[in-house]
Structures are given as structure tokens and as C-alpha cells.
């Protein structure tokens, strides 16, 4: 057994002439949360499909828990959980029936369905048909379904997309609990704030290639500008804003001038967001 839960080595996939995943290589350590970020059509979902054995790579290799995904997909799938971007539940079955079905497919004998429902905030609604659930409830049930086999690796594809704040927070809490349990989490999202909050490292994917991969902090250090923003009282009684770049050789002098010669009302520090960095690297936004 290796310490790396996921290894992608030169992984490649194309649909006809379109290269969806272009020779990407990365690894994810056991117990780590990797945020996999990119705009729509960047290759995120295809990467997830390759890593979870839904697609066979056209080139390269994916290894999960020391096993080649293309050769032993079912052994791997028994140890992972996948939460899809689009709700794909059996709507005419209840929440309990959905969870029990997948528990049986995973061969899980001992299974506390009530506890799992409570974990994802669906206590009291388990016997209702899924067709009566709200979007947030369906998404939480999908996360619950991905947990029925206590997976070693959890793949979450846009788990909080379009959800109300309470549902999104409930899912983020489950992600952190799973990490605390020791699960490795592959989190696909284009919510940069969420990735920043949850991920140990983030990878940016654009046009099938990984263009950056590091911790959010180091990416910000490497690519972002840290600013100090100050509001000062203007001569006409109004407020003016001054910005000082913190990583410049002139910064100490500019700071001294600001505080000695101006009437400073407020001071804020500001660092680049992951979205700013993505735009800086790729030249385009995430949508």
C-alpha cells in the first residue's frame, strides 16, 4: 500500500477529435482534500470518470489505493464513494430505500441508515419519496449515498452547486468529518471560496491540462498580490482610498508616508482570491 491514495500518471482521454484530458499527472495523499478547479468543459468530470473507472483512459494510467483503475475497476469501486454533479437518485423510492439499495450493492451488511440520514440532515424525511425532496435535500442524500460503504476515497463533483447556505454548510461539515475519519477527498468545484476553505491543495485544470497545483496559500503567495487598502479623509471632507502593494521594495516608505501624513480612517489588508489567480494563469474566468 502506498501513501498516495490517488496517482494520475500522464492521464489522457479524448472524445473523437476533442482532447478532454491532456496528459495530466498528479497525486493525492491519503487523508488529503484536493480541490479540482476549472471552468465548465475544462475536463473535471472526465477526470473523475477516469479515476473512478467509468472511462478507460486512452493514454496514461490512474492508480487508486495501489490498484490500476483500468484493470481492476470493481475492486476500486468497492472502496470509493462517488457523488455526482446531477441528482441521479431513484425519485420514486424513499431516501431509506435509496440508501439501502446501494448498501446492498456494496455488500454492506451492518448499516445504520438512521444515523447516516441524520449526518446529512435528513432525519425524519427518510421514509418520504425522493421526488418530494428539495434540491438541497436531494444533494445531501447523494452525499449520504456516497458514504454508505465508508469509502477510503470520496469523489464529490460540485457537491454544493446551487444549494442554499444551510445545505451547503451541512455538506461542507460532512466533508470535513470524512477527512477527519481519514478519507481522501477529491473535490471538484468551481466555487473558489469553498475550495479555498476546504482544500489542502488545489489543482487548476483548463482545456484538459493542469495549469497549477499547490496549497491555496502558496498559490496566493506565488501568483497573487497582497494589498493594504486604506481609507483617508480627503481635503473636501469626503473619503479617498489608497492602495499599497505589500510585497514591493517601496512598501515601508509608502506605509510610513501614509500613516504620518494622512488622516487614516480605516485600514484593510487584502489578498488575491483563487479566482484572481486562475484568471491570472489562464487569462479567463471560471464560468
Amino acid at each position, binding site marked *: 500500500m502506498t501513501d498516495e491514495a490517488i496517482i494520475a500518471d500522464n492521464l489522457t482521454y479524448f472524445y473523437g477529435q476533442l482532447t478532454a484530458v491532456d496528459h495530466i499527472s498528479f497525486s493525492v495523499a491519503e487523508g488529503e482534500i484536493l480541490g479540482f478547479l476549472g471552468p465548465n468543459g475544462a475536463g473535471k468530470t472526465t477526470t473523475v470518470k477516469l479515476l473512478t473507472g467509468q472511462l478507460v483512459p486512452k493514454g496514461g494510467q490512474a492508480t487508486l489505493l495501489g490498484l490500476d483503475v483500468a484493470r481492476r475497476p470493481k475492486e476500486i469501486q*468497492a472502496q470509493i464513494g462517488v457523488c455526482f454533479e446531477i441528482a*441521479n437518485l*431513484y425519485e420514486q423510492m424513499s431516501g431509506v*430505500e435509496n440508501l439501502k439499495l446501494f448498501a446492498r450493492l*456494496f455488500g454492506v451488511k451492518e448499516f445504520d441508515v438512521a444515523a447516516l440520514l441524520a449526518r446529512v440532515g435528513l432525519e425524519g424525511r427518510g421514509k418520504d419519496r425522493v421526488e418530494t425532496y428539495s434540491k438541497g435535500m436531494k444533494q445531501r442524500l447523494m452525499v449520504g449515498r456516497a458514504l454508505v460503504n465508508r469509502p477510503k476515497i470520496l469523489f464529490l463533483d460540485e457537491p454544493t452547486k446551487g444549494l442554499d447556505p444551510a445545505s451547503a454548510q451541512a455538506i461542507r461539515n460532512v466533508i470535513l468529518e470524512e477527512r477527519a475519519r481519514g478519507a481522501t477527498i477529491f473535490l471538484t468545484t468551481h466555487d473558489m471560496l469553498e475550495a479555498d476553505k476546504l482544500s489542502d491543495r488545489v489543482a487548476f485544470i483548463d482545456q484538459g491540462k493542469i495549469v497549477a497545483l499547490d496549497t491555496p496559500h502558496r498559490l496566493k503567495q506565488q501568483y497573487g498580490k497582497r494589498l493594504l487598502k486604506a481609507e483617508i479623509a480627503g481635503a473636501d471632507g469626503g473619503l479617498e482610498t489608497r492602495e499599497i502593494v505589500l510585497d514591493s521594495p517601496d512598501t515601508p516608505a509608502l506605509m510610513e508616508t501614509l500613516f504620518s501624513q494622512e488622516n487614516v480612517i480605516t485600514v484593510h489588508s487584502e489578498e488575491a482570491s483563487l479566482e484572481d489567480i486562475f484568471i491570472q494563469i489562464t487569462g479567463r474566468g471560471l464560468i
Partner: protein
Amino acid sequence: MNTDMVKALVVKDLTLFFRNRFFALITVLGLLAYIGIYYLMPNTVDELLAIGFYAPDLPPVITRQLADEGVVIQEMGSEEALKAAVVAGDFPTGIVLAADWTQKLATGERAQARIYFAADFPADLKESYVILLQELAFRISGRPLNIDAETEVLGVDRAGAQVPPRERMLPILAVLVLVMETMGLASLISAEIETGTLRALLVTPLRMEGLFLGKGLTGVVLAFVQVTLLMAITRGFMRNPLIMLVALFFGTVLTTGVSFLIAAVAKDLLSVIGWGILAMLVLMIPAFGVLVPGAVTDWVKVLPSHYLVDTVYQAANFDIGWQSVAGNLLILLASAAAFFGLGIVVLRRKFR
């Protein structure tokens, strides 16, 4: 192969099938309707030939003779009344013999007769009425035909024991039940593809062969239970229960394969119904041949449902042995295996 997984899939599919109000309703109502149709159809065959006559000159002894041979003579008061009765559908044919008809026959003169046919009377049978009149003429004139005709019935002589319409209807009803379930299963699979639940199933330890086994079992169980129920209620198992069961089982495997093919080409419920009706029409053609003998010709044997229909018809109505339907059953089994296999291959491509 993990049987618990397959069992879980079958239970899930059966649950979803009966929670789909459309298919649940169609299944129950359809079965009741088929049983109702069966019992509403006549259970006897009228082997008498009714003919309307306006023939004031015809000796009563002739009409009695004809009646003994299975012909019912209904004498009318006038030619106009006879024509009205034929138009009204009281008789398929009406024969008018002039008042001097017998006399002319006796003297060797040429006698005139007129035959009225209903608009829908089969053209190829019209000539037989002319022959009937000629026979009648010879009897009256006392000059019998100088012909020795020897008749022989090949197989079981069904005179007086013809297969009634309701028993001829039975193969159509069986095919209808099977095809309705075909649409139900195709709709379940198509919905799995459309909603993405199939993707969720395929990232579990469930293997593709387990998935197909589960779907196949669901299709076979759904169709077999219903068609068996239909046959039991309509007394289809009275003569050859084992042959009937085997034929129906092969039929359910065949239609399950067809449902895989429909699911592979259909995108939603509407297209499932569209393709399903097409499949139903094609599969039912041999059954129409049983209902209306002569309606279809030998080309119907290229349709696999012919072998199901023929076996069901024979097993329900005649005392037959395995040997007489062995060929049918073998071809049916081969067709069922071919369609099931083809369905899996085509559907598997779509799953990817």
C-alpha cells in the same frame, strides 16, 4: 456473480415498475381487458351455411336435403325482401330461382338463376355458389353428375369441433401481454440512462453482467407472471401445460431482448412507446394469421413470434406431443437467445 446484488436490482426494478402509475395501471387494466375480450369472444363455431332463397317453384324435399348437409335455407317472400336481407347482413348470399325453374330443368331448357352477394363477400368463394346451383339443378333434373369424388381430411377432422374465435384470439393476447411488458422494461432502462441512475449503479461493485442479469430477470418475471396468469384464467393450460409454459418462457426471453433493443434506441417514455408499438405490430402479425386463416403467407415464418404463436395456438387447442412442436421451440429458443444477446450488445454500447 453476487446474487444478493442481482436480487437487490430485481426488487428495485419491480418496485419502480409498480410505482410508475402509467405502467402499473396499463398492466392491471390490460390484463383485465385481455381476459374480458377472451370471454366475450364466441366459444363455439357456427358451421352452418345460411343462404336466403326466393324460389317459389323449389320442391321442399330439396331444401330438406340441403339442410341435412349443413346448409340452412331461409325462404323469402319476394326478391325485394331477399335483396334487403342480404344488404342488411342477414345472409351473405341470396339466390333467386324463377318460378319456372324446375320445369325448365325437367325439359332440358336453360334455366336462369340470380345470386346476390353481400358487398364484403370474398371473391374467391363466389364460384362455389354457382357450383352449388349446378348441383341443385342436377338433383332436380334427376341426372346426377358422372363424377366420383373422394374426400379425405388430413390431420384431425375438426368438423363439428372447429377452434372457436376466442381460442384463436389467445395467441394475440399472449403476444400483447409480452409486448406491453417489453415497453415497461424498456421504459425502466431508458429512465435509468436518462436520469443518470445507471452511472451511480456502475460505480459500485456491481458488474455489467450482474446488471443485465438483474434487468433480464425483471423483464422475464414481469412478463412471465402476467402471461401465465392470463393463460391460467383463460384455461390455456388445459391440454399441454408444460409445452405452453416452455413456449411462454422462451417468448418472455425473446421480448426481454426486444426491450433491451428498444431501450438502446429510445430516449424517453414517448420514444419507448413509439418503438414499442412498432415492435408490437411486427410481432403480432403471425397472431393475425391464426385469427384469420389465410391472412398471411409463408413469409411470416421469418418473424420469431410465429413460432411462439403457433406453439401457443397448438398447445391451447390440440392434444399435441413435444415432437410436433420441437422444431418451433428450438427456433424460438434460438431467436430468444439471439435477441437477448443482441439486446445486451447494443445496450452495453449505450451504457458506455
